[in-house]
C-alpha cells in the first residue's frame, strides 16, 4: 500500500529565502486531508474490500453444508450482518469520542472521532451494497422499500455523509472539531428514532430477518462477527494514521512559518 501522503504539498512549502510571503497563512492545505483527496480513500476502500472478500472466502469454507446447498448468495449475510454490527459500534464510538472532544477539546480524541466517522461511513456503504445484493437475490429487486434495515442504513448513510461533508467544509475552521462532534452526537441520537419511524410508518412488509437458525449457521456467523470488527479496527487505525500524518504535516508547516516570523 503506497498511497500518497500529501505532506509535500507544494503550496504549503516555505517560500524561498529572502522572499517573505504576503500572507504567511496563505496556501492551500486542503490536500492534507485524506477525504479531500480521493486517491488514498479509494485505495483504502479497495484494501478493505479485498480483505473482506478473503474473509468471506475463509468463512464460506467453514459454512455448513446446508447453507452451501442454498447457494452462495446466502453467504452475503456473513458480510452483511457483521458489517452492520460493526457500523453501529463505530457510530456509537464516534459519538462517544465527540463527547470527549466537547468536554476536553482534546485534538487526539478529535482525530479519533473523525477517523471513526469516516470508517463508519465506509462500513455503511458496504452494508448498503451487500444489503442490496441480498435484496436482489431474495426478493428480486435491488432497492427494496419493504426492507426496514436497508432503509435505516440508507438514512444513516445520508447522515454520516453529512458528517464527512461537515468535516471537509470546515477543514480550515477552528470550530471544526466541535461542530463535527455535535453532529456526530445528533446523528447517533437520531438512529433509534429512525429505526422506530421506519418500523412504524414505513411500508415495511418483510420480516427483518430471514435467518435459518441451525447451530452451524449461528456458529459461523459468530466467527464472522468476532473477526469482522477486529479487521475494521485495523482499517480505522489506517484512516486515523492518515489523519495524524496530515495534522503533523500542518503543525510542522505552522512551526516553520512561526520561525520565519520570529526571525523577521
Amino acid at each position, binding site marked *: 500500500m503506497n498511497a500518497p501522503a500529501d505532506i509535500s504539498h507544494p503550496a504549503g512549502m516555505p517560500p524561498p529565502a529572502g522572499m517573505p510571503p504576503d500572507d504567511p497563512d496563505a496556501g492551500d492545505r486542503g490536500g492534507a486531508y485524506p477525504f479531500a483527496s480521493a486517491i488514498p480513500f479509494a485505495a483504502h476502500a479497495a484494501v478493505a474490500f479485498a480483505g473482506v472478500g478473503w474473509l468471506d472466502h475463509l468463512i464460506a469454507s467453514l459454512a455448513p453444508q446446508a447453507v452451501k446447498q442454498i447457494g452462495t448468495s446466502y453467504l452475503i449475510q456473513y458480510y452483511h450482518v457483521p458489517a452492520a454490527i460493526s457500523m453501529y459500534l463505530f457510530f456509537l464510538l464516534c459519538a462517544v469520542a465527540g463527547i470527549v472532544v466537547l468536554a476536553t477539546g482534546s485534538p487526539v480524541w478529535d482525530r479519533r472521532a473523525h477517523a471513526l466517522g469516516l470508517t463508519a461511513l465506509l462500513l455503511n456503504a458496504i452494508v448498503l451494497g451487500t444489503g442490496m445484493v441480498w435484496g436482489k437475490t431474495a426478493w428480486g429487486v435491488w432497492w427494496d422499500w419493504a426492507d426496514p434495515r436497508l432503509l435505516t442504513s440508507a438514512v444513516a448513510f445520508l447522515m454520516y455523509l453529512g458528517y464527512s461533508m*461537515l468535516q471537509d467544509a470546515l477543514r480550515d475552521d*477552528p470550530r471544526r472539531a466541535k461542530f463535527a462532534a455535535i453532529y456526530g452526537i445528533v446523528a447517533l*441520537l437520531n438512529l433509534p428514532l429512525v429505526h422506530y*419511524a*421506519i418500523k412504524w*410508518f414505513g411500508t415495511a412488509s418483510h420480516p427483518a430477518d430471514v435467518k435459518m437458525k441451525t447451530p452451524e449457521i449461528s456458529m459461523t456467523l459468530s466467527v464472522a462477527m468476532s473477526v469482522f470488527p477486529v479487521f475494521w479496527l485495523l482499517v480505522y487505525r489506517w484512516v486515523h494514521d492518515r489523519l495524524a500524518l496530515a495534522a503533523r504535516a500542518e503543525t510542522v508547516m505552522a512551526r516553520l512559518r512561526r520561525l520565519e516570523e520570529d526571525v523577521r
Partner: protein
Amino acid sequence: MTGWRAFSTVVRWDVAREMRRRSTLAAMAATALVVLFVLSFAVDARRADDPRIRAGLLWVTWILAGAVGAERAFRGGRDAMTDGFLLAPIPRASLFWGRTVSTFLFTTAMSALSIPVFLVLFDASVPSAGLAWLAAVSLLALLGMSALGVLLASMTSSVRGGDVLLRLLMLPVLLPAVAAAVTGTGQLLGGQDPGIRPAALLLAFDLTFLGAGHLLFDHAAEDRT
C-alpha cells in the same frame, strides 16, 4: 437574570424584530407558496387524491420553508442579533430556547398561512373530527424541526456555503419526524384514526433535540467569527 426572564426577553425581541421587517415570515411564506404550487403542478393536484401523498406534499413544503426560517434566525456570521445576544449575561441555553420558540412561532405562522392555499389548490377539506389531533401532530413536528434547525443553523450560518450544508445536515435527521408527521397527517386527512404512534414518535423527537440543543448549544455558539 433568571433563565425564564432571559428566555422571554429573547423571544420578545426576536418577534419584535420580525414584526418590524417581516423578512423571515415573508421569505418563508413565499417559499411555501412557490413550492406548493410547483408540487401541485408536478403531481397533478386533480389526481392526487391519496391523502398520504397530499400530506407528503404539505410537509415537503413546510420543511423547505422552515429551513429558510432556521437559516434566517442566524443570518450570516455577522448577525448583529446573534452576537449581541451572545454578549448578554444570559445562559446560552436560554438563547437556544428563546430562538427555538421564536422560530417555532414563525414556522407555525407560515404553516397556518399556507393551509388555505393547500386546501384550494388540492380542493381538499379538513375533516373536523380529527382537527385537534391534526393540530397537535403538526405543532409537535414543527417544534422539533425548529429545535433541530436552530441547533444546526447556529453552526452552519457562519460557514461559507452554510445554507446548502444546513439542508444536507438537517434533512436526514428530520426523517423520523417527517415520517411520523406525514403518516399522521395523511391518516387524519383521510378520516382515519392514526392512533398514538405519530404523536409518540414526534414527542420523542422533540425531547431528544430540545435536550440536545439545551446541552450542546453552548459549544455551537462559541467562537463565532
